[in-house]
């Protein structure tokens, strides 16, 4: 009985300062919004070739193959929901919706095999049980009651399980010797690890750190050093250049739950007092505010549509985001103006993220779509996708080169030459646009032009076999023509 009561106390008597939950919400869901937007570029691989394997075999029989437009729209809508939650709106309904959508897209295909995305799903599942404190991340006045902490305990217990098994996986002579770590670390980090005592030492330190963190994040007296070490550990992993997506950023966000509460609460209160004095814009929406709320909802959707240039999926996501924003705001009339404003802010944040000057996601969405269509033999779709690449990113030379090559392969030599010329202007040192030009002239039987372009390509890449083949062929056919008794090539 005693043990049972103690076990219950661990889970049910635990409470967390609302400021900590708000900070966690801002960081974790903020990182998630960015991650989900970045995932949009991988949407073209879904359904390509009408092939899919889900994470759970029984899902294959139930779900249709998740296709590119569904995944792109789904990711964008989820990014919007994550941004909305990060800013403090939406609450439980938005978290549940986001968790359900995330679960379908993650478990629906093994194309997403990031283990940390599975961790994100489990954290989201725990967040479904969180009682979200009222107010913004800066800490509005009121609502300072501690939040029931069992979901937070659950998240930290899950993190311990991750560390424990990650350490267990490394009890292998190949890891212990440093060989596996050496294979995965490149650049400046190699030198830093040598300074530290070598790869074998670093490999053992990683295991020790993981084991320490697995236990220390639950011990109140060790929380501060555990948080400092944990954050440094994940920042170090990120800086070392491991290809693990935004895993480190998610972990740093989760560590806000390990940091000592008092300084966070004090800082939030300090910020809240000052933010309260700022003349923040308020929607003229109370009461009743329905019209203003709807206008804000639609404006947010329109903003998303205008600045996330991925065609139909963006239209679907923008419409759903506008509907969700409007519904969330109108479902709680007293908070309608605030929710509508936060909906607008979430859309604006995503729109900013989608700008080609900030992320390459929209460009790469079309680039990957075009590339996979080309490899699977669908040249018309590939050409249409690359036309969108150069529209979205007109200064991206490789896009023009690939489009030129597709025009060449689909029998449009004039358009191919025009695109190759643009690419040559944008990337004067790149041999590929010159090679495409040489291939176009070669196919047309224009020897002098093919030879000139091939020689330009060879100047830039002397080892290119295709350029050499074209150049040698036309040089050979030119030689007899120049000789006194020569004939036509």
């Amino acid at each position: 009985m005693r043990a049972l009561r103690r076990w219950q106390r661990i889970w049910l008597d635990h409470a967390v300062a609302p400021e900590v939950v708000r900070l966690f919400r801002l960081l974790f869901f903020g990182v998630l919004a960015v991650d989900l937007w970045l995932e949009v570029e991988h949407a073209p691989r879904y359904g390509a070739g009408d092939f899919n394997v889900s994470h759970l075999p029984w899902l294959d029989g139930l779900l249709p193959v998740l296709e590119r437009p569904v995944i792109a729209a789904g990711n964008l809508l989820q990014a919007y929901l994550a941004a909305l939650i990060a800013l403090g709106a939406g609450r439980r309904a938005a978290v549940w919706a986001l968790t359900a959508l995330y679960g379908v897209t993650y478990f629906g295909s093994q194309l997403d095999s990031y283990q940390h995305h599975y961790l994100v799903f489990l954290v989201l599942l725990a967040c479904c049980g969180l009682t979200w404190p009222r107010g913004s991340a800066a800490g509005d006045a009121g609502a300072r009651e501690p939040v029931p902490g069992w979901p937070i305990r659950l998240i930290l217990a899950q993190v311990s399980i991750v560390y424990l098994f990650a350490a267990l996986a490394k009890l292998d002579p190949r890891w212990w010797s440093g060989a596996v770590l050496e294979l995965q670390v490149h650049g400046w980090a190699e030198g830093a690890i040598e300074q530290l005592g070598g790869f074998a030492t670093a490999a053992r330190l990683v295991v020790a750190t993981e084991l320490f963190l697995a236990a220390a994040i639950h011990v109140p007296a060790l929380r501060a050093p555990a948080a400092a070490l944990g954050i440094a550990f994940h920042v170090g992993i990120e800086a070392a250049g491991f290809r693990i997506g935004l895993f480190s950023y998610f972990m740093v966000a989760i560590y806000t739950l390990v940091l000592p509460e008092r300084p966070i609460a004090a800082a939030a209160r300090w910020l809240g007092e000052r933010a309260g004095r700022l003349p923040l814009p308020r929607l003229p929406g109370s009461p009743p505010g329905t019209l203003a709320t709807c206008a804000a909802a639609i404006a947010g959707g329109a903003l998303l549509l205008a600045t996330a240039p991925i065609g139909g999926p963006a239209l679907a996501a923008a419409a759903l985001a506008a509907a969700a924003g409007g519904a969330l705001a109108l479902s709680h009339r007293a908070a309608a103006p605030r929710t509508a404003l936060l909906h607008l802010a979430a859309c604006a944040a995503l729109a900013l993220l989608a700008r080609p000057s900030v992320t390459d996601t929209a460009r790469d969405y079309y680039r990957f779509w075009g590339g996979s269509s080309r490899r699977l033999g669908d040249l018309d779709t590939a050409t249409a996708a690359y036309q969108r690449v150069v529209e979205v990113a007109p200064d991206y030379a490789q896009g023009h080169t690939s489009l030129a090559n597709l025009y060449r392969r689909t029998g449009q030599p004039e358009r191919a030459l025009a695109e190759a010329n643009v690419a040559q202007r944008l990337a004067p040192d790149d041999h590929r646009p010159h090679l495409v030009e040489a291939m176009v002239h070669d196919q047309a039987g224009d020897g002098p032009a093919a030879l000139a372009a091939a020689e330009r390509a060879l100047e830039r890449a002397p080892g290119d076999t295709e350029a050499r083949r074209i150049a040698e062929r036309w040089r050979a056919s030119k030689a007899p023509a120049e000789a006194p008794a020569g004939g036509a090539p």
Partner: protein
Amino acid sequence: MQIALPVSYYLTRDRSRAERYDERFAWRMFSAERMVRCQPVFLVGEARTPVRLHSQFHEAWVTIARRGRQDVLEAMARRLCRERPGQEVRLELTCQEPAAPGERPRREVLEEGLWDLCPDGRL
């Protein structure tokens, strides 16, 4: 459940090498198995003509197949069988794991293409 799932990896991984390379849900970040590189070759018909995987499957699936993921290799086999009714589909799978210093990388033939995968679609 969150403990049982990763534990199940350790209980089943010795059944076959291919299962060992499926580390999903086992929290084996940066493990040695993650660094494995496999060469899957599907052979079709009596002439045992190799299939060009990139022309049949998206490169992301080919990358996963090269990590030796059994589910994906079996699904690829089923797909090839469906598209070529009446023909045999066999798999040759060779994988290489990283080695500790002083050891030679272990190269192992996991599937030798001995039998037709079409009847039950299983490795």
